Structure formats: C-alpha cells, structure tokens
C-alpha cells in the first residue's frame, strides 16, 4: 500500500493548523505559518532567493483544494493561491526535511 494520498486533510482555522492523516494512520500537524513559509510556487521561491520579504505576513488559510489525488492547493486568505503542495512535499514539511527535499 503506498503512503500517498492521505486519508484525511483537516484545516483547523481557529488554531491555524493543517492536520494530515496518512494512509498508515500517522498524523502530521503543520502550522499555516509553515505552509506560507514553504510555499513552493515560483514567485515565493524567487522572492526567497533574492531575499525579498513575502508580500504579506498573513498566513491565514482560506481553504484547501485537492489537485487530483497527488497534491494539495493551499489558498491563503490574502488571495495567494499559486502554491501546489505535492504529498511528498507536505510530508517533507511535516518531518522538517524541506531543504533536503528541495535540494535533492
């Protein structure tokens, strides 16, 4: 049985957290701040590369959508919706392996 996609994705707006229940039952919790910080869309990545701060400090998430069964689209409350998070990337964020993942 493959690890992806997860069984369940729960967006808890009140505490600003995304909870993922993986196929094997493991539960991962990721704060919305982290999702904003690690948004891997081209504009966020290039801003980080040249050292420009993100457009906004707000990490509030309006909603999340499935992109097929392979990824999650995160729509931030400020309208930024270009971040597509493939499940392995979500897992990398949850387990603190983002740099490893992006550099691999």
């Amino acid at each position, binding site marked *: 049985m*493959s690890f992806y*996609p997860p069984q369940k*994705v729960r967006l*808890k707006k009140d505490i600003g957290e995304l909870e993922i229940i993986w196929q094997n039952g493991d539960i991962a919790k990721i704060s919305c701040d982290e999702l904003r910080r690690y948004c891997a869309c081209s504009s966020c990545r290039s801003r980080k590369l040249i050292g420009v701060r993100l457009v906004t400090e707000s990490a509030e998430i309006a909603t999340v959508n499935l992109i097929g*069964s*392979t990824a999650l689209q995160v729509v931030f409350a400020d309208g930024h919706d270009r971040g597509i998070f493939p499940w392995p990337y979500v*897992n990398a964020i949850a387990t603190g392996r983002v740099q490893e993942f992006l550099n*691999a």
Partner: protein
Amino acid sequence: MLNEARQSTTEAHVLSALRDFIFPVFGESLIDLDAVRRIHIENGRVTIHLYLAAKVASLHGRLVLMIQNHLEGAGIHGVQVVIDSDASDEDFDFSVADARVRNILIVASGKGGVGKSSTAMNLALALRAEGASVGVLDADIYGPSMRTMLGVPESVKPVLVNEKYVEPIRKYGLATMSVGYLSPDKTPMIWRGPMAVKALQQLLEQTLWGDLDYLIVDMPPGTGDIHISLAQKLQRATALVVTTPQEVALIDARKGLEMFNKVGIPVLGIVENMATHVCSRCGFEEDIFGAHGAAKMAEDYGVAMLGSLPLDKKIREHLDSGIPSVARDPMSDISQCYAILAQRVAVAAWRAKITGMQMPHIEIA
C-alpha cells in the same frame, strides 16, 4: 473425517483465509484489490472466482498455485480458482468514436534520448505478451521514431475512413499511430504550441483504436506548455517517467514528476533505463552512471520504482532493424526484463484506479 471437514468450509472461512494472502506482484491482498468476485461452495468443493483489472496472463498459473497452497495451510483443500480479467463492464479512460480504452499510460521523460520510445515500444509488446490488447500512439512531434522501430516502410500510410478517421497501422499485434506516419518525409513537422496540441488530440481521437486494454502514449520529451495541455486532455491517464541514472536526466525527470503532480495525473512510477552496463564479453556488471539515483528520486516523490532496464546494445540493434527485442524473441533475458516491467505497470495501473477512487477527505473547520 475428511468429508466432515469439507462440509464445514464456509464462505466466511475462505474469505478470512484470503485476507492474509498477498501475491507478491500485487503487493496487497485480493480482498483489498476487490478481486474476489464470488466464492462458490458445493458439496464441500470451493471455487473462487477472481477478477483482475490487470492483464498479467503469465502470472495466472503461479497465482492459482499460491492461493491453493495458502488455503491448504488454512485447512481448505481442493480449491478451484477461476480467473477473469476481461473488464467489459468497467469504465474507460477514453472512449471516442469506436475507441474504448481501459487504461491510458503516458510514457514521459524530462529530456530526449533516455530511451522513452524504446521503453514504450517494448513495454507495449510485453503487455501484449501478457494477453492484453495494446495500442501505441507516438506523439513525439520533435522526433517520431515509430516507423523505424517497427520497420514500417515509408510507402505504408494509414488508411483514411469516411474522410475523418484513420485505421491504425497494425504490427506485431499492436495498433499503432504516429505523427511520423502522416508527415510526407523524414523531416519532423514544425508544430508549435496550440497547433501541436490540436494535432495530437486529433490523432488520438480520430484513430480507430477499437477495444484496447492499454493505450501507450509516447510523449515528446520535456515539460513545456504542450505537455501540460496534452496531459490535461488525458485527465484519466496515468504516467510513467523514464530516466537514465545520469544526474542531468534525473533532474529533468524530477520536472516531469512535478508536471504530472501539477495536472493531477497519477504517476505510476519511474523506469530506469540503461542502468547497468553488462560487458558482453566477460559479463562484468558496472553501473556506468552511479547507482540508485532513480530509486532515491522514487522514494522522495512517493512513487514506485517500476523497473530497471539494462544498457544492452542488442536493444538498440533490434530497434534499428525494425523488430523490437520483445517481438524478436519474447523468451530472451532482455524480454524478461520488459515482462517484469509490464506486470508491474499493469498492477500499478490497477491499484491507481483503486486509490484514485479513495480521494482524501477534506474537512475545513
């Protein structure tokens, strides 16, 4: 005594014994795969009717043997197993005109020359050898190679039907269509952007494919806009990414994986081509590009490593002569590698249909 034991066998008994039986190639129990369609018990004789949504005929004998052994271990003797894999009632990935295609498999690579077409063609033949009806669409507008690989002479052109449809060219039991069949000479057509997408869509939709278990689409190399639009037209497809273990090819393959993630097409896995060099004189094996790159990438992206094909000059010679290795000698060692790949691909496509139906549940609070 024996009679008594037989009488007491119930459907629940058989099902619970099957629950912890896993056929290695399937990787999951027959119950989880929804493969057990009926259990018939008459006078203590058990008959299990299986439905496999994958064409893997060469494995049927071993599957039956392993089920029988497993059930004997649970005290259930003399079991008959009937296998059906013709999914007349299943839904299709693609049905237009007379085409009814159960599985579309996109074969992609980040860059050219990694062996995408060679792999697509031998994989198609290996699936054919597993009892599947198979079509191949050569959609590589930059370098169509099907005519050469199949030895179809320039004089042979697809036949037009009702001025709108074309008959695929049939060779080695495959239904094939290529952008190269239509172009008047060897120079590749210069197609750009929307025109290329339109042309490829026509080729897909206006070919009289008929009933196919698998339609393999040999994509142009790369991950540009053409690929994304094309992938979006094939929403129900699944994809394979071919790569060589070289650093550059791996980076390109990674882009391929990301592209399919973006358009929501499940990637069944990665196929590593030209992996190991086996010296034809001494049989010495060495990994010419360094080991395990593709395996590592598969792990990072949570996709399977579906196979590793040897670098073997015979693969090239056979293709250049117009008779791919699997068609020339289905019993050779090389053909064995493709057979294993075909079985894994067929099973992965089957499993993707099942997990694809189990989309994650989203809760927003």
